[in-house]
Structure formats: C-alpha cells, structure tokens
C-alpha cells in the first residue's frame, strides 16, 4: 500500500483498532512493554531552574574580595558551562530516544504483522510517537540483544528454528533500519517485487530531506513528520498517477516510477520538484512557519537491481551513476 492508497484509508480506520485485536504474539508485546518500562527521567525544566538557583546561591556565598559584578560574571560563566553540559546530555538522550523509537517501531510492526494488521497502518506510527521513552545506552543494548535473540533464536544444533521464530518470516523490511520510517518501507519492497514480476521497468527515486535533525530539535518530531508529508503530498500531485510513493526512512521518501524510459526527463522532473518544494510550511503553536529545507534525490533504473531487496542497498550505498541534484 502506498501513500496515495493510504490517503483514502486513513479516514475509515479507527485508531483503537490495534488495541482491540487479539494479541497472540504475547512475547512481542512483553518486550514492547519492557521497553516502555525502561524509562529514565528526562532533565526537566524545574530541575534545571533549581540547579541554576543553587549554583547562584553557592557562588554568592563565596566570601572573597571579588566585587558583586565579578561574582555575577563568575556565576554566569558557570551557568554557561552548565548550559553546554546540559545540551550535551540532552543530545545524548535524544539520540537514545531515536534509537529506542526505531527499535519500538520494529517491534510494533512485527507485532502488527503477527496479528494480521496492515503493517503501514498510520495509527501505528502515531502511537509510537506518543511513547515517551528514554533509556540508558546499556539498557538499550541489552534490550536490543534480547530482541535479536527473540527474533532469531538458535536451536541446540545451532540452526535457526523457524517454528520458534514466528516473526522471522515477517516482511524483511521490518528488520531493516532503513525501512524503520513511519510508513511503507516494506510496502515499497513488496510493490517493487510485483512490478518486477510483471516485467515492468522504470526508475527508483529516493528523495532526501536535509536539516531534519535541526527541525526535530527545534520543533519536535511532529514537525519532521509534517515536512515528510508535505514533500510526499507534493510528489503525489506532481508525478504520474501510476507512480507509487513511500516513506523510506526517517528522512527520505521513495518514488517508484513505472513505464518511463528517459532518465533525463525524470531527472529534470525531479529537479523541478525539489527546487519548487524547498519551502515547506509547518504549524507550530498556531503560527505557520515556512522552513527552507534542502532536498536531494538519487535516481536508479530498476534494471540495475537484481531483485526488490536491493532497494536497501540504494540508501546505504549510493551508486556513482546515480543522478544527484
């Protein structure tokens, strides 16, 4: 299912559908719950202010010969250093949060596949965004290890036990971090498989959005999603009606362009799209803010792919013959 098809389904899928389904993959759910339970308290604003106040008091109590102005300067220098320290800590937390989110995304997708819900259901993504989880690096590593053991259990003879590893047979894309985006990584592979089976030729375009880390930091993940959706929507309206568009990763979209022969025309088309679409508007606290985002794209003929799973190599290793804007 691609974004174009999804757009018509979003309205009639109730958000609580996931919760109302029977959950036969209890182990998967347990792991997910354990992950959520691994919360660590975030440095909050109140604690920060309290710390600032204590630092200030301590500095004022120093009975030296320094003038009040000099003391104030000392306090402010200490506060500046603390700001730098706090920013470092927050960045580390943010990174761990992103790693956790990707992991939880993977788990939830496995779970949804097991209970027969469409993997790209948009509700799944919005649920994940709402999980406020911050885990320590050690917890995250241990958790990931346990997940891997669960997904790929090894029997006494050292061979992977398919019966004991029901999730292994799920869509490969769900086990690939490139497809850990909100929607459709696995669907892109499935879609391309069907295109290739029909003998159709065409091109794969990966459209990458820059500065999303800054947007995430400034305005949050919802703004990042808004940006991705804005570009996706523009692609849907600008490309041919039989072209399929997918979320490919946290910062990229994929378009599978069928029945096209001229690479130079598609190149020109994509150049026009990325140049028109650099200004993206997002709503932040009631204000519409126009963000100028650098967009780039890679274009690869489908003939160069041995099979649909080669899609994963595209984002990891851009080929030298790919067009770059």
């Amino acid at each position, binding site marked *: 299912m691609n974004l174009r098809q999804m757009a018509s389904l979003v309205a009639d899928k109730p958000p609580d559908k996931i919760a109302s389904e029977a959950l036969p993959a209890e182990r998967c759910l347990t792991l997910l719950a354990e992950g959520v339970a691994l919360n660590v308290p975030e440095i909050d604003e109140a604690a920060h202010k309290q710390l600032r106040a204590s630092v200030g008091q301590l500095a004022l109590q120093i009975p030296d010969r320094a003038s009040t102005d000099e003391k104030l*300067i000392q306090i*402010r*220098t200490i*506060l*500046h250093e603390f700001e730098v320290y706090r920013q470092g800590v927050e960045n580390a937390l943010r990174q761990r949060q992103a790693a956790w989110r990707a992991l939880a995304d993977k788990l939830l997708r496995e779970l949804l596949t097991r209970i027969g819900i469409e993997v790209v259901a948009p509700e799944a993504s919005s649920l994940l965004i709402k999980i406020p989880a911050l885990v320590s690096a050690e917890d995250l590593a241990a958790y990931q290890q346990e997940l891997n053991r669960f997904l790929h259990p090894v029997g006494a003879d050292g061979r992977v036990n398919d019966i004991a590893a029901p999730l292994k047979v799920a869509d490969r894309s769900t086990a690939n971090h490139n497809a850990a985006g909100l929607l459709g990584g696995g669907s892109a592979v499935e879609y391309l498989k069907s295109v290739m089976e029909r003998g159709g030729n065409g091109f794969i375009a990966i459209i990458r959005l820059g*500065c999303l880390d*800054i*947007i995430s930091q*400034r*305005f949050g993940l919802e703004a990042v999603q808004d940006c991705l959706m804005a570009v996706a929507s523009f692609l849907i309206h600008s490309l041919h009606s039989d072209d399929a568009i997918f979320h490919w990763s946290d910062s990229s979209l994929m378009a599978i362009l069928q029945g096209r022969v001229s690479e130079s025309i598609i190149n020109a088309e994509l150049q026009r799209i990325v140049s028109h679409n650099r200004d993206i*508007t997002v709503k*932040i*606290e009631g*204000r*519409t*803010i*126009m*963000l*100028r985002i650098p967009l780039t794209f890679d274009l690869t003929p489908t003939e160069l792919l041995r099979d649909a799973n080669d899609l994963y190599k595209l984002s990891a290793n851009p080929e030298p013959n790919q067009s770059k804007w």
Partner: protein
Amino acid sequence: MDQVLSAPPLAESAKQTWIDDLPLAYFEMDAMGVITCANRASHALHAIEHGSLVGKTPWEFMPAGEKERSCADYLSLIASGDEPLVVYRSFYTSAGQFRVYQLHRSLIRDPQGRPAGMRVVGIDATESTRELEEAHQASQWQASVLASLPEAVIVSDALGLIHYLNPATEEMLDCSAAELAGKMIEEGVPLLFYSSPEQSELSFRRALQSSSRGSAILLDRQSRQLRVDVSTAPVIDQNCGFVIGAVTILRRISD
C-alpha cells in the same frame, strides 16, 4: 531520421515572407555593421517606411552612451569569430522613446567559414528590465539601510541559521559576517544570561512566535562578555503571512 526532424528548406521568396511576417524584429548586418535586410517588425525601431533601415547601422538608433561600446563589441566579435551571447541594447523607437531590446544573435559566415555579418532577433524587454532594475535598486536600498543602522541586526531563517548580519553586529561581536553566516544563532551569538519582565529565557522558538525585549550578557568571538539590550521579532512574509525567520537587534549597554 534527420530528414524527418529537420524542416523542409523554404524557397527564397517564401522565406522572405516568413521573416517579414515575424512578430519579432529581425535584421541582418554585414561585417561592418551595416544593415543589409530587415523585416517589418524591426521598423518599429524607427519611424520610416519599410526598407529604409537597409544601409544604416543599428548604432544610429542607440543612445550616445551606448554607441561606441556597442560598435566596438560588434567589430571585435566579427574579428574573433566567437559565437555571440545574448545582449541588451537600447534603441530609439518610432514611439519616440528609447526601449530596451534583448538581442539574440548569430554570425553569418562566408563559404570559407569566416564571419561575414550577423543575424539579430530583438525582443522588447523594456518592462522586464525596468522591473528588474527597480527590484535591484529597492533591494540595494534596503541593504544599505540595514548596513547603516547603528544597532546590531542579525537575521536568521526559520531553522535558526544566521543569514545576515550588519556591520554594527560585526563590530560588536568582533567577527566578520562570513564567519557567522550559516551558523545556528545560539552558537553564533551565545547568551550567558537573559532577563525580561515577560520571560526568563529567550528561545529561538519563542522568537518565531512573538516579539520580545530584554537585557542579556553575550559572548563575543573573543569570549568577552558584553552587556546588551536584546529585541527579537518574527520575520513575516508579506505575501503569504507565514513566519520565515527571526530578526534580533542588539544594543550595547555601557558598563
């Protein structure tokens, strides 16, 4: 394949009619710049009957200041044999005013390939060049105003990346605009302390939302602490009403 793609050759008389009916000014010149043929539209350049342009040079219709340079350029092009670029030239027209023409040109070559003259198509670009010039002047004027402000002005885009700072900012922060351009505003202008009656902190996100005013201590590029008044306001696109960035104004407070 070539036969399919290329247009069939026109008879000389048909070509003459076709060129004569062109809605664009077309004329040809010899190696000395004398007009050898001109279509009907090119006669808008001068209020005389069809055919009378022949034997004249285009420089006769140009303002005095352009004549010599244009003539020299033409002769040098003919001498070099290089394919000419598109140029803009002013001509006195039958409407009694000078109009600017965008000239698309190609060399006429003799059988040996030597330049023997030039074909010229002229498109009236008076309005567009005037608008461009006015926009350029307005932009220059605004840039000059910003550069002349005694307060330090820093403009960042909606992502918080510094796009512009005026000379007063360069002087205050002891750095060049190039050093700070493209940096995050918090990194380029680090505030150690901020206070205002409305808020205890100044965040960029807040600066995008509404105007604010307060006092602060910031670090210049040499890590010296400066006491300043800070005013911020969102930059709003006048056409669409969207916030496209933030402007920060710093005013030094004497210690």
